[in-house]
C-alpha cells in the first residue's frame, strides 16, 4: 500500500483517423490531440479516491497510465516513490466492461494471480475463500457468460483482491448494472476497502457514488482536461446526505461543476 504522486502529467493522442473527403484543407491526420493537461495529484496510501468527470474527458486514459498500460506524453506517475513503468500485479485493474477471460471458469479466473503458488492445497483454499467472500460459491465452474453482470464484477473483484495487490484501479465498476445490483456492489466495494485498506482508485460518472464511497474526490473537466476540484472527505460511513450539510453542499457544487444547475 503505497502513496501515489501524479506530477505534471500530460497526454496527447495522435489522430490516426483520416478525415472525410470534404473537410477543410488540413484533415487533422497526424495532428496530436491533447487529452490530459498538466495533472498534479497526490493520494495517500490506503485511500479510496473517486474520480469524476464528463465522459470522454480522459478518466480512463489517466487510469491506464497509472496502471502502466499506456504511457504519458510528459510528466510521471510515482507509486511508493518509484515511477510507473509497465503493468504489474501490484496494481490490479478492474475493467469497465468485464475483464474476465471468457474461456476460463470463475475458478480459473480467480486463480490467475496465484498460478505460480507452490502449495496447491493452500492455493485451493485461498481461491475458494475469495470466491465465497464475493458470494459466488456454487458458480466456480461457470463461465463468465453464464453469470449476470453483477456476478461478473464480483468475480473480477475476487480475482483482483486475491493477489493481495497494493492498489486496485477500477474503471466505472458499476456501469451497466441495474440499480439494486449497483447499490449492493457499491456497498461491497466500501466494505472490502474497510476490510483490506487497499489504496483504491475508482472512476465513476455517478456523483453520489463518489460522495458516498470516497475518502477523496477528484473532479476532472475541460478540454484538454485538468483537475477542477480535489477534496478530502472526512465523513464516517455510512454517509447520509440528509444529515451532513457539508456533504450536501459539496454535492450541489459538483453537480454545478459538471453542468447540471440543480441537483435532482
Amino acid at each position, binding site marked *: 500500500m503505497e502513496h501515489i504522486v501524479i506530477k505534471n502529467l500530460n497526454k496527447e493522442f495522435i489522430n490516426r483517423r483520416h478525415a472525410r473527403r470534404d473537410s477543410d484543407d488540413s484533415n487533422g491526420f497526424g495532428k496530436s490531440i491533447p487529452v490530459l493537461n498538466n495533472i498534479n495529484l497526490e493520494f495517500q496510501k490506503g485511500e479510496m479516491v473517486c474520480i469524476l468527470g464528463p465522459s470522454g474527458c480522459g478518466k480512463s486514459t489517466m487510469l491506464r497510465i497509472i*496502471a*502502466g*498500460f499506456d504511457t504519458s506524453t510528459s510528466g510521471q506517475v510515482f507509486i511508493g516513490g518509484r515511477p510507473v513503468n*509497465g*503493468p*504489474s*500485479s501490484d*496494481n*490490479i*485493474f478492474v*475493467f469497465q*466492461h468485464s*475483464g474476465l*477471460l*471468457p*474461456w*476460463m471458469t470463475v475458478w480459473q479466473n480467480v486463480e*490467475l*494471480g496465484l498460478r505460480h503458488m507452490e502449495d496447491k492445497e493452500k492455493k485451493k483454499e485461498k481461491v475458494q475463500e475469495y470466491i465465497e467472500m464475493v458470494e459466488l460459491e456454487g458458480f466456480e465452474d461457470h*463461465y*463468465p*457468460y453464464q453469470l449476470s453482470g453483477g456476478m461478473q464484477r464480483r468475480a473480477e473483484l475476487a480475482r483482483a483482491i486475491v*493477489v493481495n495487490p497494493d492498489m486496485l484501479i477500477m474503471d466505472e465498476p458499476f456501469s451497466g448494472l441495474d440499480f439494486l445490483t449497483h447499490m449492493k456492489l457499491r456497498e461491497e466495494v466500501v466494505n472490502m476497502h474497510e476490510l483490506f485498506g487497499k489504496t483504491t482508485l475508482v472512476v465513476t460518472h455517478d456523483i453520489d457514488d463518489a460522495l458516498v464511497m470516497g475518502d477523496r474526490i477528484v473532479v476532472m473537466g475541460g478540454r484538454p482536461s485538468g483537475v477542477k476540484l480535489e477534496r478530502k472527505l472526512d465523513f464516517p460511513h455510512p454517509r447520509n446526505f440528509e444529515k451532513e450539510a457539508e456533504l450536501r453542499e459539496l454535492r450541489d457544487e459538483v453537480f454545478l461543476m459538471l453542468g447540471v444547475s440543480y441537483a435532482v
Partner: protein
Amino acid sequence: MDSKSSPFILSLLAFSIVLLLWELTVRFSGWSEHVFPGPSIVIISFCELIANGTLFKHSVASLFRVTAGFYLAMLFGIPFGIFLGRLETARLFFNPIIQFLRPISPLAWIPLSMLWFGIGDKPAVFLIFLSSFFPLVVSTTIAVSSINPIYFQVAANFNFSRSEVVTKVVIPAIIPEVVTALRLTVTIAWLVVVAAEMIAVQSGLGYLILDSRNALRMDYVMDGMIAIGIIGLFLDNIMRKLGRTDSAFWGSVV
C-alpha cells in the same frame, strides 16, 4: 409440415424427391443407361463397389491425402497466422505475398507440383496443403488481430509470460474463428483432392471417377460422386464437433 418436424425427416424427404425426379428424368429423357443411368442401377453398382472393396480402397486413399495435406496446413498455417496476428511488421511484410498467392487456384499448381514431386501421393498432398494453408493463415491472422485488447492488458496485469499469452489468451480466444475456418477449409481441400487425383495418381475417388469414365461406366462415375458427397458431409460434421466444448464455445453465446 409444421416447424416441429425433425430436420432428419425433412432431409430424408428432400433426398427422396431428388431420387424420384432423377428416376422420372431417366424414364422420360429416353437416354441410354450408359449415358444417364437411373438411381436403381447406380444403387446396385454402389453396393457392388462396396462389396468388392473398391469404394473403400479409393475412399481411404483420398482421405489419407486430404488428412495429410490438411494436417500439414494446420501445423504450419495456424502458428504462422498467430505469428502474423501478433506482429504488425510481419503482417505488413507477408500480407501482399499471401494476398497475391491466395487467389491462384490450387489446380493451377498441378503442373509444377507434378514436376517437383513426381507421381504419387506427394503432389496431391502438396495441392491439398496449398488449398488449405492460405485460408487458414488469413483467418487465423484476422482472428488474432481482432482479439479484444483488454485480454492482453489482463495478461500484462497478471505478469503473463510470452508463452502464457499465447496459450492462455491467444489460442483460446481464436478457437471459435479457427474452427469455422477449418470447416470451410476442409471442404475446399476435399474439392481439390478429387481434382488432383484425376491427374497424378492411380487411386482415390477422383481416379475412380476418371477411370470409370474411360471405361464408359457412368454408374461408377455417379457412385464416386455419391461417395464424395457422403464423405464431405462426414468431414464437416467432425469439424463441427471439434469446437463443441464449453471453453471453446465461449464466444457463441452473447
